């Protein structure tokens, strides 16, 4: 992961469940023109938050020994808009995990209301890669700082 759209991981249960938070702020550049005078978090970035949470969960299940790559997003829904100042609580569950891939579903709530939901599939690249370009030292440091690993 080269950048983060998650602020903090709160729960990381191997092969099962993860919970993270992301706080939206008007200081983020993309909210200046999405949309001008009416800032809302783009749906693509909301998916990114769910993908990062679920992807880290998948990676943790294999002790970060595999590179986990987002492959497919299905049935994404965005019932309400996410606005500056909102705190997104991102939850992810593993439906199935195998050496070659992982099937997950995720949900984001803001103040207890569902703001987004999606099913996301990841593939696991072969272990032959010399080093992880997904789970970088920076990311692992974030997880340690969060106290979840």
């Amino acid at each position, binding site marked *: 992961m080269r950048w983060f759209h998650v602020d903090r991981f709160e729960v990381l249960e191997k092969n099962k469940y993860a919970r993270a938070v992301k706080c939206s702020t008007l200081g983020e550049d993309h909210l200046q023109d999405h949309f001008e005078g009416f800032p809302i978090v783009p749906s693509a970035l909301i998916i990114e938050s769910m993908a990062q949470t679920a992807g880290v969960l998948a990676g943790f299940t294999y002790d970060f020994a595999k590179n986990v790559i987002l*492959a*497919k997003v299905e049935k994404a829904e965005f019932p309400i808009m996410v606005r500056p100042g909102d705190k997104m609580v991102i939850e992810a569950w593993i439906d199935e995990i195998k*050496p070659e891939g992982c099937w997950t579903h995720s949900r984001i709530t803001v103040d207890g209301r569902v703001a987004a939901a999606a099913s996301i*599939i990841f*593939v696991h690249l072969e272990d032959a890669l010399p080093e992880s370009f997904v789970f970088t030292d920076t990311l692992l440091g974030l997880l340690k700082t969060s106290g979840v690993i």
Partner: protein
Amino acid sequence: MPTREEIFQKVTDVMVDALGVDPDQVTMDAALVRDLGAESIDFLDIVFRLEKAFNIKIPREELFPENLAADPRFVKDGVLTADGLAALKNRLRFAETAEFEKEPKVSAIADLFTVGLIVRYLETKVA
């Protein structure tokens, strides 16, 4: 034991969910890539959904073997040699290869992965 028609119906549901196609597009002869627009990741997803739908385990590469023409001895000028064709038929036991054998181009191998191949494979798994 489910009938071929029952298996086909479940496979159709899987294709509709995995590939976002209309049920009418799913026929026994439909090739996953050419006719239904499947991409590489979809093969993994289809296997997962078939396992759930039929409550079975599908070992890796059993239904969708990979690298069917990777051995340079099996290919000459973009066409499978006799040995290459024999090796392919051995690994793709549920494919209908009669037409393909007339001109076994490597570029046409993907067309052998049809809905019918999946149905015939599943008939042996759920028997």
